[in-house]
């Protein structure tokens, strides 16, 4: 193991800037977040970056590491270092705030645009709904519900880069969990939302979202499910 790592860090504001090189001591079991924190605490106190839990629960430390979006807290340097170098940049496909901090507002706005919120019926149910955990619908919900909204899939998606209106994999994955949720009052509304321009039909099933998801979820599969549901609704004249 080398004594130091050469780390290129994007420094700048509002999309303007350049990579600055830092030499960081190499340590055992060192994560990329450790590297960024070392730079901020010891080499450049002005470095802006975002993190919270440090243990892969909050998803706020996601950045581009050697070209791929990753949770930096759960990425060991040894797994990604190339020729003793790391290149760290803010998440792709999002507006740049400063240095390594990207603005996630469009990401969450698109989750709303895709109908990614639970809407119950107006009347209070008289009985608790009995949901079979083994039912296909609930299994589909369980497969997607663990998303914590870190935007790694959004940064990985080429269609988001090419089509600014595309709502992205996380928003559609969330919508798929709601389409399958038996407690949802109006499933048709969710299908209408994901069938709008920039919705599920924009996806090319490239699968970068599923490859990069730090939680090993499969948004690509969720989007395929939405495409099937939307196509069926279209043929029935419901969309």
């Amino acid at each position, binding site marked *: 193991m080398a004594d130091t790592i050469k780390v290129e860090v994007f420094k700048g504001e509002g999309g303007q800037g350049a990579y600055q090189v830092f030499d960081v001591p190499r340590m055992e079991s060192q994560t990329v977040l450790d590297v960024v924190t070392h730079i901020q605490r010891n080499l450049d106190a002005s470095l802006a970056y975002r993190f919270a839990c440090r243990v892969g629960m909050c998803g706020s430390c996601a950045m581009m590491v050697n070209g791929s979006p990753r949770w930096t807290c759960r990425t060991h340097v040894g797994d990604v270092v190339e020729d003793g170098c790391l290149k760290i940049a803010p998440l792709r496909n999002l507006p740049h705030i400063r240095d390594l901090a990207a603005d996630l507002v469009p990401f969450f706005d698109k989750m709303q645009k895709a109908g990614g919120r639970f809407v119950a019926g107006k009347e209070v149910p008289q009985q608790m709904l009995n949901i079979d955990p083994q039912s296909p619908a609930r299994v589909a919900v369980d497969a997607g519900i663990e998303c914590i909204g870190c935007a790694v899939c959004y940064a990985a998606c080429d269609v988001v880069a*090419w*089509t600014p209106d595309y709502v992205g994999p996380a928003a559609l994955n969330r919508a798929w969990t709601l389409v399958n949720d038996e407690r949802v009052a109006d499933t048709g509304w969710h299908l209408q939302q994901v*069938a*709008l321009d*920039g*919705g599920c039909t924009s996806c090319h099933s490239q699968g970068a979202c599923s490859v990069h998801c730090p939680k090993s979820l499969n948004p690509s599969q969720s989007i395929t499910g939405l495409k099937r549901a939307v*196509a069926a609704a*279209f043929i029935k004249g419901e*969309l």
Partner: protein
Amino acid sequence: MKNKDLKLYMTQRLSAIFMVPFILLHLGVIIYASRNGVSATEILGRTKGSIGWMLFYGLFVVAASIHGTIGIRNIVSEMFAWRGLKLEIAMVLVVVLLVAVGLRAVGAVT
């Protein structure tokens, strides 16, 4: 139109389904007809004046032109960031061109 993407998506899928029997028959006839060798004159002898083959390939051309244009529209929109009226005019020109050259070819052999 708020769900134009969906309409184009469905049109592309339905045109693909529509083309499946055409493709199978087209390939099947080629394999069957050429098993003992076949000349251009013999082919034209069967297709010239045939309303059936004219309809078959005419519909095939129209479906393929629509299907292909939607695909080209996606590529142009994504790769060159063409949007709005410029994109729609360009795609109308593409579909007209594809239908025109396709039907011209059908006219030449039927």
